[in-house]
């Protein structure tokens, strides 16, 4: 269904965003069946996706947010969670 990827190089900001997204998705419970949350640290993959500033949030191949850690509210809005 939905594929959520968080791009980061391992710094604390990137890890925090990954954890926050995982938490938000888990909170959705049943509605989140089939949603995959992936963390990408390989720079070559980032290049292929056209992302240079991390952390970045990519949903179904589309880059929704990049450059800094998003707040919980921003993440909720981007992921379509109330």
């Amino acid at each position: 269904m939905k594929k959520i990827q968080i791009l980061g190089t391992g710094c604390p900001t990137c890890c925090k965003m990954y954890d926050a997204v995982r938490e938000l998705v888990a909170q959705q419970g049943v509605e989140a069946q089939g949603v995959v949350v992936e963390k990408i640290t390989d720079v070559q993959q980032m290049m292929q996706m056209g992302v240079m500033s991390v952390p970045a949030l990519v949903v179904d191949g589309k880059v929704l947010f990049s450059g800094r850690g998003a707040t919980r509210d921003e993440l909720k809005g981007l992921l379509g969670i109330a």
Partner: protein
Amino acid sequence: MNPQPSCCGASRAAVPPSAARRRALTVTAALLGLALWWPVYRSLDPLAAWLSFGLFGLDPQSHLGEAVRFFLYDGPKVLMLLVVIVFFVGVLRSFFTPEATRRVLAGRRRGVGNVLAAGLGVLTPFCSCSAVPLFVGFVTAGVPLGVTFSFLIAAPMVNEVALALLFGLFGWRVALFYAGFGLGVAIVAGWIIGRLNLERWLQPWVRQQLSMASAAGDSPHRSWAERLGFGRSAVRDIVGKVWVWVLVGVGLGAVIHGWVPEDFMIRVMGRDVWWSVPLAVLLGVPMYTNAAGVVPVIQALTAKGAALGTALAFMMSVIALSLPEMLILRKVLTWRLLAVFVAVVAAGILGVGWLFNALI
């Protein structure tokens, strides 16, 4: 109180009332904050004096009295400056993205490219964790190696925290000089590295990337609400991380102010002590702290006789030649190229330090 449930079909704005109210509150709070900022800022000096000598009853001539007054004045002063400057720079940076910068710099001639890259390095939002993807992204898009380096040198060195603190503790002239010299070092060092044609000293996997095309990223369109959000997050992230260091630095500065005798530093860090500049640069390499901790200490040292050029060289060295950053760059540069990078930047900083000592 209206006992009946509200009508959902009414012609209300698309934004739910709670979010609109919250936004109105934040805007009001921000405007209020801005309006109050200046009068509060102006009153810090007399307030600090009154607190230390009036309320706490300390002797103005004593070591403790002087130290406490310094801390109570400079601590809040620096923090207030930080909040304002970080916010505005955050909003300013929301207009720039690495993707757009890359497009501007791709294929640029050296010289012009170096100048542009240094300037954009200051304005483009850049987190040090993006150093590797950004570096690879730039060189694979056709940004010349030297131009990329100008960007990478300018970005951490001429940062808003350093400028805010220099402005607050030394005045606008020193802040301007620092920015100018920082950009100068970035431009010249990047240009020199570019002239040396050291692409062959990049890590092999990066050189492989050079032969493959990379996808052009999209620059997202941003609303004003998002831009202000950038400013707010910047304050939360940066000031939130840095305020402890500021207080530690100001505390140390206060101790130096109160207890170190005047002209003490002249012997070691004075203007005529030519070897103090290279020593300062060397000392800066293994150290990593952000500008927040260093500037207040430098201010106190210069008040006791240390030469400003030496102090600024030390600061540039700490920020631009930090060991952690070099370890990150190791992923894309071989030892040789990294050594050249460090040598050229260190030479630039040395030059700036000596020049400053000679001029000021």
